[in-house]
């Protein structure tokens, strides 16, 4: 009799818990396509929260990306980058976030011997690949090159005053964080998603971040765009697991033709001209978005052979897929 009663009791408890479970424990999904940082972005997020909450999270993500854009864009007045570029002394105080970005950028610029260089503001402004269709004068390029170079810059932290500083010995040097902020934004958005316990995939320009794995536990299948094809043609795929980022730098994103020659937006500091590395795109995969963003630019400029040596610095944490002028895929 007691056994029966105990059995019934437990059965009741089980049924009680069943009734308090919501049928909303199924994953809800939100998908958005939008424009920010001058490029198309999209994300697919899944979570066990309500559709309302997902909408709020989605708004917060878009807000965050836009505010990062405002903070670090060279063209927006009073952004941190703008202020550095309009500095009046060789020393600027900077925010902890800017320090974080510049320290990493300085590091990669040094290790890549300038293949990635965030100090090419003057050169980039001269070329203005997005708007212009004429190549700049050779002399102008030389003049402008004199005011570039990561060796003229450094960042520092003052422990006593607890402040961060940026040093530059050349008053005309301009920094440009275009090759950095998308990856940086990707990392910030990743953190937001983790905090809210949602999983999914975010595509920020050429940066893709995987938050958690797919519903079936597998990684996300990412197609690497065929440089010779259209926006949705892919030439090969990689699998992106939760916490991993991938970033692609290619010569097909922003370019113009002048007298039959293609000039793209990834400039080589040594020549002052767009990098001619026999590559059409490089895709770098790794744990940090901002690193992938910078590394993909560096590898594109370095070319295949030098990139392989360069990536040894990172001990397989960052891997790359290269596509050359003939459309061959190399790893």
């Amino acid at each position, binding site marked *: 009799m007691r056994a029966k009663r105990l059995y019934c009791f437990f059965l009741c408890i089980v049924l009680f818990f069943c009734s308090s479970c919501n049928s909303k424990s199924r994953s809800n999904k939100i998908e958005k396509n939008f424009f920010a940082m001058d490029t198309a972005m999209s994300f697919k997020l899944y979570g066990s929260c309500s559709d309302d909450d997902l909408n709020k999270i989605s708004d917060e993500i878009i807000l965050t990306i836009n505010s990062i854009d405002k903070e670090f864009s060279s063209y927006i007045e009073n952004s941190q980058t703008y202020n550095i570029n309009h500095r009046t002394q060789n020393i600027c105080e900077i925010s902890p976030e800017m320090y974080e970005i510049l320290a990493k950028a300085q590091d990669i610029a040094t290790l890549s011997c300038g293949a990635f260089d965030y100090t090419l503001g003057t050169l980039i402004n001269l070329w203005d690949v997005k708007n212009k269709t004429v190549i700049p004068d050779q002399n102008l390029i030389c003049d402008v090159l004199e005011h570039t170079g990561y060796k003229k810059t450094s960042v520092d932290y003052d422990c006593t005053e607890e402040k961060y500083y940026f040093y530059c010995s050349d008053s005309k040097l301009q920094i440009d964080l275009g090759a950095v902020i998308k990856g940086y934004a990707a990392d910030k958005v990743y953190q937001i998603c983790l905090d809210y316990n949602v999983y999914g995939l975010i595509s920020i320009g050429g940066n893709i971040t995987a938050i958690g794995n797919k519903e079936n536990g597998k990684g996300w299948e990412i197609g690497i765009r065929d440089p010779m094809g259209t926006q*949705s043609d892919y030439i090969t795929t990689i699998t992106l697991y939760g916490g991993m980022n991938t970033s*692609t730098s290619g010569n097909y994103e922003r370019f113009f033709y002048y007298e039959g020659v293609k000039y793209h937006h990834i400039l080589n500091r040594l020549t002052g001209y767009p990098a001619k590395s026999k590559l059409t795109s490089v895709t770098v995969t790794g744990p940090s978005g901002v690193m992938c963003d910078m590394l993909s630019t560096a590898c594109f400029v370095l070319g295949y052979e030098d990139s392989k040596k360069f990536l040894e610095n990172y001990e397989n944490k960052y891997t790359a897929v290269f596509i050359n002028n003939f459309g061959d895929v190399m790893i």
Partner: protein
Amino acid sequence: MKKIKPGDIAVIVFFILLAVVSALVLWNGDNNKKTERLIARISINGENFTSVDLNSINEAYYIYPTEGVSILVENGRIKFAESDCKDKICVLKGWLDSKGDCAICAPNMCIISIEGGDIDAIAG
């Protein structure tokens, strides 16, 4: 557990096998049917403008999501017909007719994308 007898297990196993067999038979044949649904999503400025079921189109028609852009919808395919943008990459893309296809007109902030496909995203 109360009174479970060997026959019960047999019955349960029988039904499980039945489920497996029916799954093999039904699910493989159904794959073709499932992949036929082509839904195109059109978004402007980040907001969903409309969705179109490309399989249910009888007569072709135009959609004008924003000034200067026209989208042509036909049975099983969709494309940017005209755009007032500079490069016209969106129009040059041509017809979108498979899952995962997409065309973007950046100056007009308009995106057509077809749901589904084996690829979750395209890098680059």
